[in-house]
């Protein structure tokens, strides 16, 4: 796996091979392993090591990228030539900025970098072996056996490095570890699920996750079917994460300029309930990932939503300049590069990737939300979510792996799964209660720090057959 020192050496060779005005190299390397189990046995078990360099060249407003995972001279020469050839044939882009200097890229709050370094790489995670993972899986299988269930899931561990160098002196590097466990417990006609990840493997408790998933499978056995309609729902954090994730592509300057964002003509308005506060904060202690963006710019903390009012969106450097020269300047709040850009060139610009929901004034646990519910539906997880309407932000999807009827403050029984068609704008207007935010992982969206939510009038439109 490529190190910062090796990256610097490869970049020097790339610079010598290139005749471009400017050159940039982004390195990503990982040592990744995943043990997968199903039917109470390990059935897939993989390990991978790979390092990639992605080379961008600039010629007076023309830029392009070429990528290779081979670092010999011939491969690098081919990649440099490909990047330069792709760039040279283009018409100049008047909005393309010079690459950032180290000084520009690293401006802002330095303490954030220290926080990131302290919370992202753990030798204990990097040292996990295939045998270690097998022993954890054995424990999960034993929980399944105790409850007469069948289990399926994964336990993965990785260490990775990513860095960016450019010919204006930028040299930023980040390394990280990540451990992740996801467990499904299956009964005859029911299932339960839990998933968690962390840079520090010691934050994961496989037995607790397995027991919680098993409890859900047992308690949702023999599910009842109730009519679809509008229900008060209690969404566990993973369900919140997966559904709200569909709106963050729109918190982007490019999305506004392209008029494909649901925030067009809505920034500055009170779109959500008073209790909704959302920021993007790469340095948050429960977050993971790199402290710099695809151009190497330090990721800034950005308050996206305050007391239900959409305050602003995030910007790559070039997008901020375009926005300042657009007709939107009076309608979009603060305009400045925030360190959220994707590697150039790209069409999407930027997006917040380290979303953190604000803590409510009076947090309630899921148990308290259940206890205060007269009638509602407890949802463990949502699945196969897709956008139906881009401006009203209606999304559809299914409940999965533990859906329960709540009546008179208690879980009554498991329910057959529902299809929903729900506007995210309406949903975030209807949040009655929230838990303290936690780091959550799902399958439809990137990891976030989100609370569980109690939401009224959630729109279930159909039920399925299980």
């Amino acid at each position, binding site marked *: 796996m490529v190190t910062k020192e090796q990256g610097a050496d490869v970049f020097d060779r790339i610079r010598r091979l290139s005749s471009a005005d400017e050159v940039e190299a982004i390195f990503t390397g990982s040592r990744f392993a995943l043990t997968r189990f199903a*039917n109470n046995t390990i059935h897939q078990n993989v390990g991978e090591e790979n390092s990639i360099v992605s080379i961008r060249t600039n010629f007076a407003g023309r830029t392009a990228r070429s990528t290779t995972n081979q670092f010999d001279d011939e491969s690098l020469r081919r990649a440099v030539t490909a990047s330069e050839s792709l760039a040279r044939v283009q018409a100049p882009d008047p909005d393309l900025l010079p690459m950032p200097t180290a000084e520009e890229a690293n401006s802002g709050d330095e303490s954030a970098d220290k926080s990131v370094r302290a919370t992202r790489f753990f030798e204990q995670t990097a040292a996990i072996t295939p045998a270690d993972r097998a022993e954890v899986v054995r424990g999960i*299988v034993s929980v399944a056996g105790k409850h007469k269930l069948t289990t399926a899931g994964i336990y993965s561990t990785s260490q990775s490095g990513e860095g960016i160098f450019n010919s204006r002196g930028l040299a930023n590097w980040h390394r990280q570890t990540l451990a992740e466990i996801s467990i499904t417990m299956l009964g005859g006609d029911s299932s339960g699920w839990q998933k968690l990840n962390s840079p520090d493997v010691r934050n994961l408790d496989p037995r607790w996750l397995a027991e919680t998933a098993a409890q859900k499978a047992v308690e949702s056995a023999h599910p009842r079917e109730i009519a679809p309609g509008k229900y008060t729902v209690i969404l566990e954090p993973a369900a919140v994460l997966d559904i709200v994730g569909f709106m963050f592509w729109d918190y982007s300057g490019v999305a506004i300029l392209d008029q494909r964002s649901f925030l067009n003509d809505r920034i500055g308005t009170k779109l959500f309930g008073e209790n909704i506060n959302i920021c993007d904060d790469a340095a948050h202690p429960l977050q993971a990932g790199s402290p710099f963006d695809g151009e190497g710019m330090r990721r800034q903390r950005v308050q996206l939503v305050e007391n239900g009012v959409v305050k602003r969106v995030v910007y790559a450097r070039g997008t901020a300049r375009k926005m300042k020269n657009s007709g939107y300047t009076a309608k979009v709040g603060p305009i400045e590069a925030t360190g959220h850009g994707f590697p150039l060139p790209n069409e999407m610009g930027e997006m917040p990737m380290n979303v953190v929901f604000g803590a409510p004034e009076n947090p309630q646990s899921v148990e308290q939300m259940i206890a205060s519910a007269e009638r509602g539906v407890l949802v463990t997880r949502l699945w196969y979510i897709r956008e139906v*309407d881009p401006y009203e932000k209606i999304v559809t999807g299914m409940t*999965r792996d533990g859906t329960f009827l709540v009546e008179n403050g208690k879980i009554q029984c498991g329910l057959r799964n529902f299809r929903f068609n729900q506007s995210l704008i309406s949903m975030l207007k209807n949040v009655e209660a929230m838990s303290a935010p936690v780091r959550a992982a799902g399958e439809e969206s990137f990891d976030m720090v989100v609370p569980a939510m109690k939401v009224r009038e959630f729109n279930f439109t159909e039920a399925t057959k299980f």
Partner: protein
Amino acid sequence: MKAAAQLALDAASVRGVTYADARVVATRNRSLTTKNGRVGHASESESLGIGVRVIAEGAWGFAASADLSRAAVEAAAARAVEIARASARVKKEDVRLAPEPAAVAEWTTPYKVDPFTTSVEQNLDLLLKVDAELRAVAGVTLAETGMNFQREESSFLSSEGARIHQTKYSTGAGYAAYAFAGSEIQKRSYPNSFGGQWQNRGYELIEEMKLVENARRIAEEAVALHHADQCTEGTATIILDSSQLGLQIHESIGHPIELDRVLGMEANFAGTSFLTLEKLGNLRYASDLVNVVADARQEHGPGLGTFAYDDEGVAAQSMPIITNGRFTGYLSSRETAHTIGALRSGGTLRAEGWNRLPMIRMTNVSILPGEPPLSLEQLIAATDDGIYMQTNKSWSIDDKRYNFQFGCEIAWEIKNGKRARMLKNPSYSGITTEFWNSMDAICSRDEWTLWGTPNCGKGQPQQVVGTGHGASPARFRKIRVGSAYS
């Protein structure tokens, strides 16, 4: 490539494995996009590496490395064996592989024009011409185009003696026009949404797609949708265009017939399947008119699921999946074939690249066209009251593949055999088997297209591969429509 693969096999064999295979894969990609008159991105990429799969102590292990030096390849093989031995700590029974003749073969995708021999200028010039046509229509607020080529060369060697060298080409292109006005964003795509049309062919596919010729119409439709009536909620007869029917096949037939899903191997992520084993040969999946095959052979067409051998060395086959409405086949592998009493794998094990474990994937899962001649216009003429829906906009289905909901970009009301008013935001939903049993007409071969779905995700770590789906427009009765906006 072969030398590295042989080195891996040798390194694995001395460590006591009962089976090993190695794939060395080299890929090259070109990806070009435009947005509103400018190049969006222009990129090329190359990737090279080896994946080593072994069975030791009756369990699987897999390790992959981008480093093809002797030391690194031997280390990858040793790691695969170490991983397999760890797998064996939590196993119930030994892995069993269905027998397969050890093939020695060479195969390349048939193509007329190697896409990588075309110039980037030529590619961008075409995309920018399309872009200009799209933006020439007042009301279009965003125009996006894209073109992609891939070349994948692989050498597969197994401890059973297989030696297979394949080179596959794929090509894709498409575009979309967006129109934002008031409180609506409308979109039209051509020739399909989410990247357009993709096939295992050369640049001749691009030349045949009439990209420029259709751009003005597509842009005009995106704008016109703002003035169209909303598709109503209720029960209706619907006709689906062939691209939407292709995705309907993908989601409600292609995925549930994957035998690894059926056996619970995907329960934690992609899900399971309602097609439990006792349904094979017994379930009335669809109406008598429905015949579906999973066909990886070149004879079926240049789909994204076309090859000569799968990624464990099994020759491409055509498998009957639904025969005159009855469920007749699963997608299988050497490991899973025995669970359905098959003596041989169906040849569907595929990997995203050198660094991924091959798994059961759709090949080209296609509905066969109707035999009596029937054009789309004739089908519409034979429909008194219905809705004709075109081009997918959203798709969702539950984790057993029963309940689905699809949105389309555009629809037309059909009244007395004629296309009447345009409808916006059409959607339909249902239960898989009820839906397929309601099909009462399908157009014939002239209307049949082999579509490419380049973005099918499955597995942990997730792998994205391309699948093919041939379809003609077809008619379905008593379908729930409009619930997406209810």
